[in-house]
Structure formats: C-alpha cells, structure tokens
C-alpha cells in the first residue's frame, strides 16, 4: 500500500511537471523567437532554441527606446494612481456599508449592485467621456474609468464586517469621529484585503489596452499594452502593402524578431514581479463570500 502511494505521488509529480511545462512553453517560444536571427526565421521559421543567438532585435528596439520608456512610465503612473485612488474610494463607500445600523444602506447597496447588472454600453459611455467630459486623449481616462468596482467594494465590505464591533464602539465612546475611526483603525486593520484589492486594480490597469483602443489617439499617450497591440497591427499593415505592391521593402526592420522582443520587453517585468504577489491574488479568490 505504501509503495503504491509513493508511485502515485511520483506519477502525479511527473504529470504536473509536464502540465506546467506546457503552460510555460508559450513564454519560452516568445523568448526564443525574440533572440533568433531574422534571416534564419524567414527561411526556417521561429526556432525553439535560438541558433545563432542574436540580440539584434533588442538592439533595434533600444536604439530608440523613448517610445517604450514613455509607455512604461505612463502605464506605471496611471496604474499606481488608479490603484491608490480606487482602493481609498472603494473603502470609503465600503465602510458605511459594513455598519449594520446605517439607514439607507440597502439603497446604496442596490445603487452599486445595479451597475453590475446593467450598463449604458459602449457608445453612451464613449459620448459622455469624450464629448461631454473631454477626457479622451488625456491620462485621466485611464485613471477615472472603473474607479469604483462594485465587486471589489463588496469584498472590502465583507472584510470590514469581520472587524469586531467593540473596537468601533470603544473608539466612539472615546469621542473619535467616524473619519478618525476609518483612517486610524479600520484601514490599518484591513491591510490584507486592501493589499489584495490594490493588486487586482493594479494588474487590471497594467494590462489595460482597450481603454486606449477606444479613447486614445495620441501616440504619446499609448498605454504599454496598447503600444504592443499597435506594433502588431502596424507590422501587419506593412506586410499587406508588401504583398499588394511588391515594391516596399521591410527587410531593414527585423519585423518578426522585433515584434517578439517587444512582447518580451512588455511581458518580462510583469512575469517576474506578479508571481511574488500570487498569494494575495489567491487570497482574493478564496476570501470568497461577497454576499451580505
């Protein structure tokens, strides 16, 4: 029986090792393609192992790094701003909702909840944001859209509810205002959930490409992911021209390797950083109960 268990464990470990290799493999393919030689790719296709090892794609990208650095900077700035603002504002509404005796609480709950059920859709939102508020082609469109996510609000509220009422009660008796209680006690006690939500918000903003797709036309305001998306599109356009006209030469741009190098430059840092925060993401899922 014991030996059987051991064999089972070994089989499981082999199974998961293979599965994980399969999951990680596409990352490796990108990496390998980005370090390949453009000429070799055009004759033999992308290589699983770059031979010869060639960094000219990266040289090409970093010869003129302004665009990518700007996109990195911009994306970082709006992701951090949105994260801080969003967590603060969502806590501000979650706290009153966590107090069992507040009048009109259910109205506010429904007010938030309804936005999860029904929305105006793309065109009315677009008209509001760009024609009325004129947020298009500004950094604000990245920050202000989706600041309040009802789902996250309810998660924060659920956590707040778990904080013992005596803490609030004793502070009130000591004459503390609700603001003081919120800032000095509730927020510090809720670090785990706030960190989790902050990461969710940050990840969402960092990976945001469709806000730019709809609202941004100025190249200097492209978010990182949208820049990557544009590069894919633009090289596609180059290729189509080449096929149609037969005259245009794209051979001076190592198009295939540059594209893959860009994907690595964009994905790399996130790939290294986010797994460190994995436990928060997992916690966010298993905190689970959103009801109330």
């Amino acid at each position, binding site marked *: 029986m014991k030996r059987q268990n051991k064999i089972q464990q070994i089989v499981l470990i082999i199974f998961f090792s293979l599965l994980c290799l399969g999951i990680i493999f596409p990352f490796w393919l990108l990496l390998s393609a980005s370090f390949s030689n453009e000429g070799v790719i055009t004759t033999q296709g992308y290589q699983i192992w770059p031979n010869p090892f060639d960094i000219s794609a990266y040289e090409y990208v970093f010869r003129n790094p302004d665009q990518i650095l700007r996109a990195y900077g911009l994306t970082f700035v709006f992701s951090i701003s949105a994260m801080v603002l969003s967590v603060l504002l969502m806590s501000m509404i979650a706290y009153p909702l966590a107090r069992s005796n507040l009048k009109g609480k259910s109205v506010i709950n429904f007010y938030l909840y309804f936005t999860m059920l029904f929305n105006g859709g793309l065109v009315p939102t677009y008209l509001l944001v760009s024609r009325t508020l004129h947020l298009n082609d500004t950094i604000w469109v990245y920050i202000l859209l989706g600041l309040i996510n009802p789902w996250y609000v309810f998660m924060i509220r659920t956590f707040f509810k778990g904080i013992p009422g005596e803490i*609030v009660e004793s502070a009130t008796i000591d004459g503390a205002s609700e603001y003081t209680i919120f800032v000095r006690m509730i927020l510090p006690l809720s670090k785990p959930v706030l960190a989790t939500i902050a990461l969710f918000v940050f990840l969402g903003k960092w990976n945001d490409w469709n806000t730019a797709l709809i609202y941004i036309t100025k190249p200097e305001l492209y978010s990182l992911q949208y820049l990557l998306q544009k590069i894919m599109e633009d090289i596609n356009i180059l290729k189509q021209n080449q096929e149609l006209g037969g005259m245009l030469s794209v051979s001076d741009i190592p198009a295939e390797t540059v594209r893959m190098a860009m994907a690595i430059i964009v994905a790399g840092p996130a790939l290294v950083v986010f797994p460190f925060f994995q436990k928060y993401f997992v916690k966010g899922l298993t905190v689970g109960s959103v009801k109330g």
Partner: protein
Amino acid sequence: MASKQNVSAKSMTTLSRKKRKLTTSDWQLYSLCLIPVLLVFIFNYIPMFGVILAFKNYKFNLGILGSPWVGFSNFEFFFKSNVFTQLIWNTISNNFLFIVFGIIASLIVAILLFELKSRNATKTFQTMLITPHFMSWVIVSYMVYAILNPNYGYLNQLLALFGIEKIDWYSKPYAWPVILTITSIWKNVGMDSVVYYASLMGIDTSLFEAAEVDGANKFQRTIHIVLPSLVPLVTILTILKIGGIFRADFGLFYTVTQDGASGNLYETTNVIDTYIFRTFKDNATGNSYGLTSAVGLLQSVVGMILVIATNALSKKVDKDLGLF
C-alpha cells in the same frame, strides 16, 4: 439638517441606537460615501440614460437629445441583418465551450493537486499554473501568433515533421473555436482551480479516515467523497457563468484572433462585443451609433435577465451561495 450635524457625538451610543434621528456619526458615514456615489453616478448612471440612443438616429450635430426618434428601427435592422444569428450563435457556442471544458480542466487540476502530498510541490505547480493569468490578452495574442503564424509558426513546423503542408490558420475559421477554447483554458485554469482546491481543503478529514478503514482506494475515495463534495460549488459556478453567456471576452476575441484576421474569421469569432466595437469604430455608415447602442442595450437587458434568473436558480440549489 445642519443643526443635526451639531449634535454631540459623545451623547450617543452609536452602535446600539434604535432612534430614527440621524446622528452625527450617520452624517459622517454618508459623507464618506459621497465621492464614490457621485463617481458611480457620473460614469455608470449617466451613460444608462444614453441608451435612448438605441431608439434614435444619432446625428453628431444634433446631440443625443436632439437627434430624431426612430422607434425600433435600429433593432429591426439588427434582427434582419445577416450577422444577427452569427453573433448570437458565436457568442453562446464559444462561451459554452469555455464553460464546459474550463470546468472540466480546472476540476481535474484541483483534484490532482489535492492528491499531491508535498506542499512545496503543490505551491510551485500552482504558481506556474497561475502565471498566464497575469498576462494581458495582447501578450497572449503574440504567443498565439508565434505558434500559428502560417509561414514561421511553431505549429506548422511541427506539422511539417509529419509531412503536413502549411496551414494558414488565420484564414481557417473552423479551427478557431478550438484555438480559443485552448487559449481560454490556458489562461484561466490556474485561477479557476484555486477555488475548487480551496473547497477541497475544507473537506472533513474524518471522511477520508473512515473511507480508509473501509478499505476504499484513492479512486473510490475521489468518486465517493471528493467529487460529491464539489457538486454544489460546480453547480453554482456553472450557473453563474451561464448568466454571463451573452458577454464575450472582448480581448480574447479581438486581439487573439488578430481582429478576426481582418474578416476571415468572423464566421466563427465575431461575437456581440466585437461586433459592437467594430461597428462603433467604423462609423462611416453614419447610423452606427444608434445601431451599436441598440445591440448593446439588447445584450445588457438579456444579460441582466439571465443573471437574475440564474442567480435565483443558484439560490434554489444552495441558499448560502449565489451572487446576491
């Protein structure tokens, strides 16, 4: 109202009050809500009034309110157009594939992870499985492109080893439900399995001990204890996912297909969300704002009905679960 704000907080036992009057602390709590409520009003509620566009023929110079009413003609146009059945079918069938195979895959992963004894191994594997979740759809689209590129792609190279000629995947619509399902599972299986895994960790271990005493093997244990314990959760999650079946993952259907490879793949990959976006972007047709609003409104209303219905259903399955 202002006078109420001046009532001293000290005189109140704030937590156990039964009084009707609003206290200072109440006002302070309301004031905390103010900015978030306002933001939700601006960015969520004001656009809701914009759905009247669905009944109008929008003209730039006339604005939303000034544009002429056209009744249900936008809807009529959509119902009669040949994309209607295509969109509904593609959205539902693709989502159906994602739901069914997604659940099967994440269940298998969760159950096998649960059988794994070494905690360190479990953690390492979980980390790797979750990694794709952190990537944007744009990056995923690059990976898919590297694999499927007709001239240089890895898949065609692999097929060449078996003597199969190059296939131009980006012009083969019938391959895409499979490709998209695999992509979707690849990205989500790690995160999805976490929920099931967490639920498995909550099983009363005495059940396993009892099973062992009765001489049950691992397989019997899985069939008789592990799987049944997951039934309520699987049911609820499935029901909730069905509630969202009218909403497609825009990033997946737009970037991973390379914008439907400029039309070649619409047959199987054009979904409600991508149709709305493309019609909106390609505004040369003039009437497109009214039409896209109509389609958006339709999606929103049907989606809302589905969510409410499925939620009611999930509550019947298990009172404690369900979204609200």
